[in-house]
């Protein structure tokens, strides 16, 4: 089953890394959109549907925290599951992002399988594997 992933990260090499590990890890149906910050991500989300958002926290212009707040404030976009992918693994940060509506949190560095498992968990029945 195909699904669409929006990768939000200001690092192009990190976006490339995430893209290249998702498909070989068994999720062949993935289509990818990319944004370099929260503002760009919001524009994309308002223009087209995505099944899951993978977002960094520290980004210029609009960070991941503000992106989550904006999504939660939007009746339609709040239904899009968001997984935070960040180097910040402090417990307080994880709690904060989950309280803001993130469905999952993957701390960098991570194994490809970890991200795949988190995606499968968040996508649930939408992804048949």
């Amino acid at each position, binding site marked *: 089953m195909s699904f669409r992933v929006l990768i939000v990260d200001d*690092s*192009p*090499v*990190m976006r*490339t*890394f995430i893209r*290249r*590990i998702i498909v*070989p890890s068994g999720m062949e149906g993935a289509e990818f959109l990319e944004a370099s910050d929260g503002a760009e991500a919001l524009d994309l989300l308002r223009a087209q549907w995505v099944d899951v958002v993978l977002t960094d926290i*520290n980004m210029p212009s609009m960070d991941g925290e503000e992106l989550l707040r904006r999504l939660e404030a939007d009746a339609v976009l709040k239904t899009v599951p968001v997984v935070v992918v*960040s*180097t*910040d*693994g*402090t*417990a*307080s*940060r994880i709690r*904060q992002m989950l309280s803001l509506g993130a469905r999952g949190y993957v*701390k*960098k*560095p*991570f*194994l*490809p399988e970890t991200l795949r498992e988190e995606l499968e968990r968040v996508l649930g029945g939408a992804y048949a594997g």
Partner: protein
Amino acid sequence: MPDNEWNEMLAAATGEVLETMFFTDLCGPAPAGASPVEPRVAARLCFEGTPSGALTLSVSEQAVRALAANFLGSEENDPLPATQLGGVVCELANMICGSLLSQVKTEEHFKFAARLIGNGDESKPRTGAVRNSSTLAACRLCRREKTHAGRGCHSNGSCRSSMPASPARLSAPTPRTGMPRPTAAPDRRTGKSWSLRPAYHRCLGSQRKTHSSTGSRPAL
């Protein structure tokens, strides 16, 4: 927290990042006074919180290409643009720093900002530098235990910290073929292997720490 604890944490963080995301292994500490061979790609990541400070990472271009090939899934000999090489070093510094600070017990959130700083001249040991051709990376941490007004770096990217700590670790990147390999081994296709040997020295250069060259794993 004493410097040796920071060193151990930095070593653990560096090893975790290299092994998990760059499919590269650790081999042992650098010889005293060693710095990465030129040309180099260097990045400084300033972090703000408690503590605040900066982490500087300087990697030889040869090693960056090997790391980038592993990270991006490209062939090692592919001509990657300089922006991608710089991006890889920034991301590596970002993850090492994030992994390091995740071990700090604090309820405070950290802010990060990474930037390229040219060829890493600022990472050169201030005195008595001995070039060693096998040294491929150097990592350096400056920190302040207390939060002060302002950031961990000056606007020109130089370190604002007055309480330096020396990081430490040794690593050996693994060339890749196709999908990432989680364990270190020489590339059977090219027969090449790499040894990253970060040099550890104090931020302000007044005192340099040295480590024995025996690591938990041999250099490849």
